[in-house]
């Protein structure tokens, strides 16, 4: 078979791979989803009539996108299950309900359903459920499980654990293995131990697993993801081949070089010749920082009124503003509002979005009634998998990146990966801004720049000072004093 023009050599190799499990290490912008969907489409014709493919994505949105892409490639829905781990496992529980220990009328409890428990307690329980296979329950845990049972509820974490229990039944596991001959898992670096166990049960007896991801982009350790699983893939699934995609089709070469330096010498091969721009801006305060960002956006858009107009190629939808903590959002939003710049706060994929079943899918579907562009605001975590021509990362300060602030402390390596994820979202313009003084949680903090900034070679950075560009007076506004 001849290599299609829209696949590079390593992508083509990954698409065609046969005979063993496969881990594809795919850095940012290397065509991960493209390769995955191509491989799925490539394998479908080899399936027997009663066989199908299981493709696991990180979010419902990613699942929809993959379905759309596969539809374009002519892959029929009947040979495929595309969904999240939660979506797939819930389907298993419903399909084989009689083999579970669940009450007949069990329902999935959303976080909003659960009352009477401390948020921190719930977080600890959830972390336990997603990071340990055998749990030694403490009193809180017992009380919580009792509460769920009384309401005939299972929570999101239980969906996976109950499915794992179900698969202890060899008949059912065998049935699934005969059905799903190929399993695909996207964002493998963010899978947890329970998900790993599920895969170990399913990917046996001739079932082949293809996992794809990037250990440098593992950012969900705080809720149970284990980047080590990525590293020990060949031990968990044997025999396994590892392939690496290195050609980056997203970022300008200079931006790619800069993010590589932050990630300790990661070197992807830039395939674009675009002109990159990495700007470092120091502001006196978080407010000044927000004003700077808002004015830069105004400039990029080419002015918002007649008096500041200039040529531009950017519109609102080209721009994203990323931050470490949701608490940074408010001041930023105010500055945008002040200039009348339309924006939208995008939530990170919460558990409720990770989970899915048929009804939930319908409800989560946003009504796309009109074409509306807005500047997006989101946390660095939520930016995973996205790309934008222009990216602002605000609050590039020590104690924020890496996070070590008022009782919140991120794992050091994971914080660095998070910053790397943020940087690698940018196609052409990347602004890294920081403030000397910041108000957070009612405290005034004196801030130093993030140590990550120093990891970027000087020749790749441009420092931009705040310009006090006095707003040009509108001639009408002047003449209004006429009478």
């Amino acid at each position, binding site marked *: 078979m001849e290599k299609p023009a829209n696949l590079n050599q390593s992508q083509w190799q990954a698409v065609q791979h046969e005979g063993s499990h496969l881990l594809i290490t795919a850095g940012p912008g290397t065509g991960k989803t493209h390769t995955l969907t191509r491989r799925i489409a490539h394998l479908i014709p080899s399936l027997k009539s009663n066989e199908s493919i299981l493709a696991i994505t990180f979010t419902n949105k990613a699942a929809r996108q993959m379905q759309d892409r596969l539809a374009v490639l002519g892959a029929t829905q009947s040979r495929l299950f595309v969904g999240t781990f939660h979506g797939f496992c819930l389907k298993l529980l419903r399909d084989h309900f009689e083999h579970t220990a669940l009450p007949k009328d069990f329902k999935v409890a959303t976080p909003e359903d659960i009352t009477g428990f401390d948020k921190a307690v719930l977080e600890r329980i959830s972390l336990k459920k997603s990071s340990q296979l055998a749990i030694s329950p403490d009193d809180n845990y017992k009380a919580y499980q009792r509460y769920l049972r009384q309401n005939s509820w299972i929570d999101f974490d239980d969906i996976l654990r109950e499915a794992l229990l179900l698969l202890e039944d060899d008949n059912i596991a065998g049935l699934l293995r005969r059905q799903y001959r190929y399993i695909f898992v996207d964002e493998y670096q963010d899978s947890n131990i329970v998900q790993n166990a599920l895969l170990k049960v399913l990917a046996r007896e001739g079932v082949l697993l293809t996992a794809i991801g990037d250990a440098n982009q593992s950012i969900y350790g705080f809720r149970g993801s284990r980047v080590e699983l990525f590293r020990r893939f060949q031990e968990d699934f044997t025999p396994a081949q590892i392939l690496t995609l290195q050609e980056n089709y997203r970022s300008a070469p200079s931006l790619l070089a800069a993010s590589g330096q932050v990630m300790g010498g990661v070197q992807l091969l830039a395939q674009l010749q675009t002109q990159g721009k990495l700007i470092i801006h120091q502001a006196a305060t978080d407010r000044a920082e927000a004003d700077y960002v808002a004015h830069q956006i105004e400039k990029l*858009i*080419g*002015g*918002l*009124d*007649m*008096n500041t*107009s200039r*040529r*531009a*190629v*950017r*519109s*609102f*939808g*080209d721009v994203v503003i990323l931050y470490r903590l949701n608490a940074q959002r408010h001041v930023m939003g105010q500055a945008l*509002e*002040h200039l*009348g*710049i*339309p*924006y939208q706060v995008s939530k990170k994929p919460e558990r409720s979005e990770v989970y899915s079943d048929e009804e939930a899918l319908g409800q989560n579907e946003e009504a796309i009634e*009109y*074409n*509306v*562009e*807005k500047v997006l605001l989101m946390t660095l975590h939520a930016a995973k998998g996205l790309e934008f021509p222009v990216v602002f990362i605000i609050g590039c300060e020590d104690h924020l990146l890496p996070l070590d602030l008022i009782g919140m402390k991120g794992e050091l390596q994971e914080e660095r990966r998070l910053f790397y994820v943020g940087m690698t979202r940018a196609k052409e313009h990347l602004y890294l801004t920081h403030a000397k003084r910041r108000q957070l949680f009612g405290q005034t903090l004196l801030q130093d720049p993030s140590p990550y900034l120093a990891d970027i070679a000087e020749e790749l950075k441009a420092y931009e000072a705040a310009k006090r560009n006095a707003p040009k007076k*509108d*001639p*009408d*506004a002047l*003449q*209004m*004093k*006429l*009478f």
Partner: protein
Amino acid sequence: MKFFADLHIHSKYSRATAKNLDLENLYLWAQYKGIHVVGTGDFVHPKWFKELEEKLESAESGLFKLKDKFAKPIDDQIPKSCRGKVRFLLTVEISNIYKRHDKVRKVHNLIFSPSLQAAQKIQTKLGSIGNISSDGRPILGLDSYDLLKITIEADPKNLFVPAHIWTPWFSALGSMGGFDSMEDAFGDLTKHIYAVETGLSSDPPMNWRLKQLDDFILISNSDAHSPAKLGREANVFDTEFSYEGIYKALSDKNDKGLASTLEFFPEEGKYHYDGHRNCQVRWHPKETIKHKGICSGCGKPVTVGVMARVEELADRDEGCKSKRWRPYQNIVALPSLIAEAKEVGSASKAVQEAYMSILSKLGNEFYILLDCPIADIKKAAGDVLAEGINRMRQGKVEIAAGYDGEFGTIKIFNSGEREHIEQQMVLF
């Protein structure tokens, strides 16, 4: 009934507008100017909408009047000679900034509504899409096409009017942020657009040169950002004094309800010629072509003005008329004429005093500019101003054309001419 209407203005809630742009001052200045129907502007803005609800009451169908308790205190300030009926019509301008076919588009659009309910529907819809409370002329990342859709879905009697369609940066056909045709911008919904606004820098004959504009009627408004700028362009209707009358005049191709328009001299507009304001480069389009569009000051492309853009898209020669053409009269604002006659700045106190004095002697500004016998003006305001108005009526003015956001400058008299006119008066 014959009446004057200015349907594109802003309130104090829009950016870079006068703080006194409220309903009371609109009511006052509409009478100074001789305007009978004035747009409310900004009806999408929640605070302004509240003021509209509070201070206006229904008058003729689809038109609103300032409640007596708000109007009474102002009536005393208005010279008896100027007092007239003022009605408000619900209007708003939206700034649509979005990407289409990989190009950033910036288009300003006007919406007229027949009722507070219809206006509120639009307000609610746009409020759910974007931020409508930080600017009376809200900036939305919404495609113009979708705005048009929202407008006609909210009420079929809403009117959608692409604003100042030639302005380079912010208009449907502008050289910098626009499209090459109305069809490109509005697709299958174009048929729901009946009127387009010519803007200050173009006049009707320029627009008649495009076949694609044949189906639209051309309207003219001030786009005032302060009360004193009201009526620098306006529409003269001769139809039923109601929203319905105006709606029919614009939407019905056989209706003759729009009698004529009052126009800026297009050269006076901010974007008639090409150039760069900061580099003080002002070029006739021919000059621009000679320089291949590159500014001799900074080496970057110049801002292409309206004249060049019309030439680029025109598919008829100069001097042709479109199917729905209407007569028009070029006007110069009276304060500018007084300033020119007196050789003082138009913002000076002398102009201000003379303006009020002339208004109280003769009547409202439109009357003075358009209809007042020259002999009466002479008697009330002197020979030089009378001659200035006479020349304006005949189009005998010299204008250094505006460019890249800089207004053009008007010259009616040559040096020494004013004295000459005055001496003639003494002699005869």
